[in-house]
């Protein structure tokens, strides 16, 4: 299912190109969603009057009123619990939890309630909830503001999980997430909020669970999501100078994972390196490694390499660059797999 066609392909010609940061692209998508569906509600801590600590919801309350876009008291579990009740009353809730690390107090509602209410009610009470969660590290923030919870969400039956890597995908994938009748955790890579890029504001035209080849290559596949995609592209550019052509696959959907797309790429390159910010052990890289190995065992020339955060709590500022996967570490892993 991997989309090999470039963004400039024919079917997307109609979408206008504008220059936007991811923060602006998410804001645009929310605006479209609030306008097109009167059941969409946006709420969370400081998303209303302030417009969010990252200004992602900037102007929405003004435009759509404080019944559609509103602040909540400071309680993450109740935010997600309220979303459940709103969904049961026919709304399409788009709650925000302010930072990754503050999703933990809401994990019970997310895992035990949001993710399984449709199941528990045998389909009577669907949960068309999209949790927007500013995620991942790289911005020298205080403790608990740089965490990567994708492995927990991906392990949870009933959830779907997506992490865009650039403004264009951020726009399109959010439309897709919110319009879906299943609960989706939408992880926004904070470190990529601000860089402006030419963006096509595309309607979703691929099924949920489709990955994307960001850069084609033939010597090895780099698998990443969120902010690490950009880093992998940088690594690939450097490798290209030495004649090593790395394919960069942006997984995008972390549940369901595009097993076919992964397998197709690795079948071509015979080597894979998965890169993520979360700690190594039981991170989603393990799932990618296991999946690839299961599907491409005979093709694989080397074991899948994992380049990840270390098994340590996310550190403060000066240590952050030493914790996060560096371009050097990615290239060393590429070298290991090429020389295996």
């Amino acid at each position: 299912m991997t989309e090999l066609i470039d963004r400039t392909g024919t079917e997307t010609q109609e979408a206008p190109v504008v220059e936007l940061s991811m923060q602006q692209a998410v804001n645009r998508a929310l605006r479209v969603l609030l306008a097109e569906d009167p059941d969409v509600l946006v709420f969370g801590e400081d998303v209303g009057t302030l417009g969010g600590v990252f200004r992602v919801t900037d102007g929405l309350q003004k435009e759509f009123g404080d019944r559609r876009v509103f602040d909540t008291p400071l309680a993450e579990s109740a935010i997600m619990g309220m979303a459940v009740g709103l969904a049961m009353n026919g709304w399409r809730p788009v709650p925000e939890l302010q930072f990754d690390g503050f999703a933990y107090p809401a994990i019970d509602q997310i895992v035990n309630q949001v993710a399984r209410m449709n199941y528990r009610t045998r389909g009577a009470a669907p949960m068309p909830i999209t949790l927007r969660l500013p995620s991942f590290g790289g911005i020298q923030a205080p403790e608990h503001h740089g965490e990567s919870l994708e492995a927990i969400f991906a392990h949870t039956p009933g959830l779907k999980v997506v992490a865009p890597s650039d403004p264009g995908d951020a726009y399109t994938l959010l439309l897709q997430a919110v319009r879906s009748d299943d609960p989706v955790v939408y992880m926004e890579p904070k470190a990529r909020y601000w860089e402006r890029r030419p963006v096509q504001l595309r309607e979703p035209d691929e099924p949920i669970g489709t990955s994307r080849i960001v850069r084609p290559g033939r010597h090895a596949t780099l698998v990443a999501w969120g902010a690490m995609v950009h880093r992998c592209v940088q690594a690939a550019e450097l490798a290209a100078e030495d004649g090593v052509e790395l394919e960069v696959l942006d997984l995008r959907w972390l549940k369901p994972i595009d097993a076919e797309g992964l397998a197709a790429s690795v079948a071509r390159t015979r080597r894979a390196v998965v890169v993520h910010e979360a700690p190594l052990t039981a991170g989603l890289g393990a799932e990618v490694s296991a999946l690839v190995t299961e599907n491409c065992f005979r093709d694989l020339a080397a074991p899948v390499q994992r380049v990840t955060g270390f098994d340590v709590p996310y550190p403060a500022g000066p240590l952050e660059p030493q914790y996060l996967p560096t371009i050097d570490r990615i290239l060393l892993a590429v070298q290991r797999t090429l020389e295996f």
Partner: protein
Amino acid sequence: MPTHESAGQGSATVDHLAPDLARTMYRHMRTARDLDTEAVALQRQGVFPAYVSVRGQEAAQVAAATALDPSRDFVFPTYREMAVALAYGVEMVGYMATHRALWHGGLYDAMESRFGAINAVVGGPVPHAVGWAVGERLRGGEGVALACFGDGASSEGDVHEAMNFAGVYGAPVVFFCQNNRWALSVPNERQVAGGSVAARAAGYGMPGVAVDGNDAGAVHRAVSEAAERARRGEGPTLVEALTYRVEPHSTSDDSARYRDEAEAERWRRHRDPVDLMRRALIEAGYAGEAELDRIDAEARARAEEIRDGVSTAPEPDGSELFTHVYRETTQELARQRRIWQEEVRL
């Protein structure tokens, strides 16, 4: 401090109820009692792996349910709400199916019934009630949410967060705490700091009412008033029904290990809510012995019918494991379903 209405009177008050309603309530209470007895028996026979009795809480439960309007309100139950379900009009074979472990959330339609799926997370559904109620106001509806929880649940963070949200948003919620004195083995004294759940309400700027939970009429009045307040847009109320869990926590529990069963026995003997209601109906001249005997017989028949229904209900097919995980399933889950088909179903 919260108002205590007829707490510890050892009687039921029915004068403020229309005779018809009072008889209906009695019928539900009696049916629930009989169904409860049947359920305990089914557990002994091995038909139910376990059961949580509502015995002694029939007044609180039936009164709360009959104080609501099932055409526009919505109930958010715990795992111990059988008599609420019955009186609210839930399809009871589907409800009891949870106790036969046929499906965790029950087999009734939660949305049609306007009665949420049975929820085993203590405190967990309380914020749902608030969300539902906020949503109801947003769309201009007049429905009220009933959030059921126990004395033990009052300790959970979710219940606090929900009450605060409800207060801030002025949401039409009735927080309905059945304080049956016990949370599994832990009594109120070691569970509820300050001793009163109803007293917590003031801290959220909402009325808190403590009411004799074994007096169906008193509970009915308190919940009705709370619901009407909410309907008028005046926000949430906390109603604490003071009652007693006369049975062990569940059929897996042995309450003699942690309490003096003589106390439970006193509640059974002197404050049984079904007995109190029967006596009150007669005293008020709302019904004679003969009529009540007829209701009793009908209740028994209904309970037996539900018992038979749930005993013979078909087990869900294994494929249901996969059916309801998503609205739109995934390739991966479809693959796993095939594995199940090939390797498990055989």
